[in-house]
């Protein structure tokens, strides 16, 4: 991981764990905004990667991120509508959006293997950070039982995505090594 990637990961981690340092966790409307934003930034990155990825495996992964995170957001939107909870933007959701925008700006400047590597590296960091937030902040803070249940239900998808992204990173590393030989 180079300096820029490390910095990006740090920003992401700070964004989703900001509430951990506070005395009280986020409210349900704030959690709703965090969930929707977290999914949306990965959908945006996935859409870019679907069109720019060099590797067909990376492109397929990106397409999956778009489909899966849209599915999660659809379920989240239906739930908050039914519960009459209005998502409330907050520091964490805004930091997530900012981190997503910065990631997109960086990816726009890359092509080929460098793009694939940067996209997948960010996907690993993103899913690690969101999983930490789900476990340490969002699930413990959720007050509504159905909102908590939704967070519990989507967690395995983030785990599977993280493992998939790690496998892709390993295969890209191998391609990179072969290219240097």
């Amino acid at each position, binding site marked *: 991981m180079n300096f820029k990637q490390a910095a990006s990961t740090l920003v992401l981690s700070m964004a989703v764990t900001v509430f951990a340092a506070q005395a009280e966790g986020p409210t349900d409307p704030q959690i709703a905004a965090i969930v929707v934003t977290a999914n949306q930034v990965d959908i945006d990155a996935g859409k870019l990667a679907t069109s720019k990825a060099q590797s067909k495996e990376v492109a397929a992964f990106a397409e999956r991120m778009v489909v899966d995170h849209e599915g999660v957001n*659809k379920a989240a939107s239906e739930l908050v509508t039914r519960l009459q909870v209005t998502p409330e933007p907050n520091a964490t959701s805004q930091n997530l959006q900012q981190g997503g925008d910065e990631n997109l700006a960086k990816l726009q400047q890359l092509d080929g293997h460098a793009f694939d590597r940067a996209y997948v590296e960010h996907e690993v960091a993103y899913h690690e950070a969101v999983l930490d937030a789900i476990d340490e902040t969002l699930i413990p803070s959720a007050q509504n039982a159905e909102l908590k249940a939704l967070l519990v239900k989507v967690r395995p*998808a983030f785990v599977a995505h993280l493992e998939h992204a790690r496998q892709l990173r390993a295969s890209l590393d191998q391609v990179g090594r072969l290219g240097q030989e």
Partner: protein
Amino acid sequence: MRVNVLARAPRALVLACTLAILGAAGTSAPGVTAKEYTIAIEDMRFVPATLTVRRGDRVTWINRDLVPHTATATAKTFDSSSIAPGGTWTYVATEPGTQAYACAFHPTMKGEVSIR
């Protein structure tokens, strides 16, 4: 006078026709009733992950996750294609042996159906 054709047909011919019909339908052996099995797809896993059935049994995958999945045999003997959230797909077990399968969308999801 009405003639009972079956009564006059050679028994071997009747037996051959019966077996041909059963074979064409790919159903269980004579005298064995096909069973129905369900594999739940939930929490990004196949539950149960391993299942043993007899030839002719029906196996139905039901997707209880929020995202689409597939049940795709490694040997390409069966492929559900995309199963939408809440959707199902049924496979009539016809290929004897152990069929390893995975979700084509999520490579960490793996299962196995043994067909006897």
